[in-house]
């Protein structure tokens, strides 16, 4: 059995070339069909995401895998790219390295953002497209099943995908949600509406926020933003009043000095009746006077605070990497062990069949010589012969199984073939 893959990722292929190389679902299906025509008998799956394009192929032992250069040319041809341009950027692996690579990819260990979970869905989708195109088989089937199983194990047994790495998601999930239990009864105030604020609002909406007010220096711009975001626009002059009503503030103005001074905030605070306030100050320079963060009941997070927490999470994910790789190695070895063991099946079947045939012939001769044996006695003798054969076969089969876990047991297989005169 042979396994191979050729592909490139964000590390090796520049973005503009990755964009040209990427396959849509329809393009992938068409490429799979063409690959099957060109290399009959090969199973094939194409994994195409915004960060990687990889072609996995597998076949029985006598189906020699196409060389890496041919697969690179095939990919280039499918996407209309000069093969000479792609060749130095794509790389290939074979056998165990293919399995280890796929298992790492599916677990998010090879992703741009370490441990990101979206890749599992993309691997599943790649598998589904190949299945619909009827280019899968038992080998790729087992390999992709192993990949999904490994991804599940890595996700549940390590914390590699747990900590958030994007500032908006962390601001909402780890900080705002640490203060508030629910957001459907909270007022969200956007001061300015930069890209980061919109992204943060998306997470707040996912968490249940409905009541959103946009305040901007330009009333017209505030109106446009409010219409886009499904929010209510307010004049900048009403900022103090809006601060009284707000529970979460997301601020991203381009102002060069604090938009909310301590004095302004204290005036608003006196009317807030002690309600807690979460302020996500995502502006540089800061929109909120940092002294406001020292007021009781105010949870003020600047972009630097959130970046530092993200960095800590990134480091934490890196710490989980050895544990995750250990799972990948364990699953790779298990897969390869099963694969090697499977290659011994024909020899085992031949060996068993030879013994059964010889045993049956001997028994027939014996029963002809002892015609007085009734059916019960004959059955007993047959069972004894079967047990004897099974016991004799047990040791060589156990040795084969053990040997399979450390690689293909060619030596043992050859020895068995020679000793018992087994044919290919």
């Amino acid at each position, binding site marked *: 059995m042979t396994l191979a893959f050729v592909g490139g990722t964000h590390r090796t292929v520049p973005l503009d070339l990755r964009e040209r190389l990427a396959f849509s679902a329809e393009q992938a299906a068409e490429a799979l069909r063409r690959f099957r025509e060109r290399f009959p008998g090969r199973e094939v799956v194409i994994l195409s995401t915004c960060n990687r394009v990889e072609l996995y192929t597998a076949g029985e032992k006598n189906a020699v895998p196409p060389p890496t250069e041919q697969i690179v040319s095939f990919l280039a041809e499918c996407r209309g790219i000069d093969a000479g341009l792609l060749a130095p950027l794509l790389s290939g692996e074979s056998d165990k390295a293919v399995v280890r690579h796929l298992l790492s990819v599916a677990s998010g260990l090879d992703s741009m953002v370490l441990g990101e979970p979206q890749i599992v869905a993309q691997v599943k989708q790649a598998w589904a497209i190949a299945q619909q195109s009827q280019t899968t088989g038992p080998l790729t089937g087992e390999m992709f099943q192993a990949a999904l199983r490994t991804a599940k194990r890595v996700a549940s047994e390590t*914390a590699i995908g747990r*900590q958030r790495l994007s500032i908006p998601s962390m601001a909402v999930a780890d900080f705002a*949600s*640490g*203060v508030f239990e629910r957001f459907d009864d909270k007022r969200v105030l956007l001061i300015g509406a930069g890209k980061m604020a919109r992204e943060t609002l998306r997470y707040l909406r996912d968490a249940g926020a409905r009541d959103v007010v946009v305040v901007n220096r330009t009333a017209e711009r505030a109106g446009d933003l409010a219409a886009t975001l499904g929010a209510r626009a307010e004049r900048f002059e009403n900022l103090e009043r809006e601060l009284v009503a707000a529970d979460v503030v997301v601020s991203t103005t381009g102002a060069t000095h604090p938009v909310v001074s301590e004095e302004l905030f204290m005036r608003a605070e006196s009317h807030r009746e*002690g309600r807690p306030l979460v302020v996500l100050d995502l502006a540089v320079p800061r929109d909120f006077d940092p002294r406001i963060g020292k007021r*009781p*009941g105010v949870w003020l*997070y600047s972009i630097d605070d959130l970046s*530092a927490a993200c960095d800590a999470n990134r480091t934490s994910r890196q710490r989980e990497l050895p544990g995750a790789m250990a799972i990948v190695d364990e699953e790779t070895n298990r897969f390869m062990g099963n694969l090697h063991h499977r290659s011994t099946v024909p020899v085992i079947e031949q060996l068993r069949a030879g013994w059964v045939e010889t045993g049956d012939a001997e028994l027939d001769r014996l029963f002809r010589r002892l015609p007085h044996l009734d059916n019960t006695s004959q059955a007993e003798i047959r069972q004894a012969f079967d047990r004897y054969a099974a016991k004799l076969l047990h040791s060589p089969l156990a040795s084969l199984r053990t040997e399979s876990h450390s690689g293909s047991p060619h030596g043992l297989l050859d020895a068995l073939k020679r000793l018992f005169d087994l044919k290919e």
Partner: protein
Amino acid sequence: MIEFVSRISIVCFVASYMVALVCEASRLVFRSGIRGAAMIGFASAGLFAHTLFLLWRAANESAVPLSSAFDWYLLAAWMLAAGYLWLTIANPRTPVGLFMLPVVLGLIGAAQLSSREPFPQTPATQVWGAIHGGFNLAASVAVAIGSIAGLMWLIQAGRLARKQAPLQGFRMPSLEKLAVTTSRTLSIAAWTATAGFLSGLVLNAVTRQAGLLETVPWTDPVVLRMGALVAWLVSAECVSRITCRRPSAASTAAWLSLVSFGVLTLSILWGLFGVTRHGVPPPKPLPLHSQHVPAAKAGLASGVSP
């Protein structure tokens, strides 16, 4: 079946709760796919054994829950253990057991140190005794839950103030939820402790009127400690209500709940190791024939001939 139930001892459910606590603590060290199930399994087994133990005592030893200090502590521990199980099933990612199970084990420890002797009862005092015990039980459980929520609030607020992401396996509920729990349990504790104290006064009056049992004097340590606890809880509730519209209201309530738990713990320790006439049966006049027996035995033991 009856033989099985009769063999259940405190060790059975203490061991189960301890294993559940170790599982909870292991959240901080490593991740596991089966830990949640193991935790719920051990806690359920412990609670099941705990329930059977209380039922067995009620059925066979005339020790209806609350009829002795021993049963009172065990029932309080049972309520908290049931609460722990419910919270763990509802919020599997919150390590609530790290806070609740030590209190459960502490109450079982207090039960072990307390008297198993049933409180003296007459038909006249039985109802008031149950009301008195029930209110005090509710107050103690409310104080324990409130203090746990208060402690969790302080930990969560500390994490948010330090601007740190949650630790692995140590994700606390939101401040909003914890603040509501703290202030509600503080109110419940104040009201039920007051009701418990007042029902104790009624119980004492009924006892005096019936003239069958000894009354508990005002200067008895139990009366003093319960009085102190009630005074503290009512004061804490008043402070909490006065400050409820201030930005520091939740923090104040959290600290008040923690101090309440300290006062409750001192009160329990005082009850365990102090001298009291609360719940003590009156000395029975010895029958004439039994007065002679010890003397005769003493004589035999000392080798004196009759």
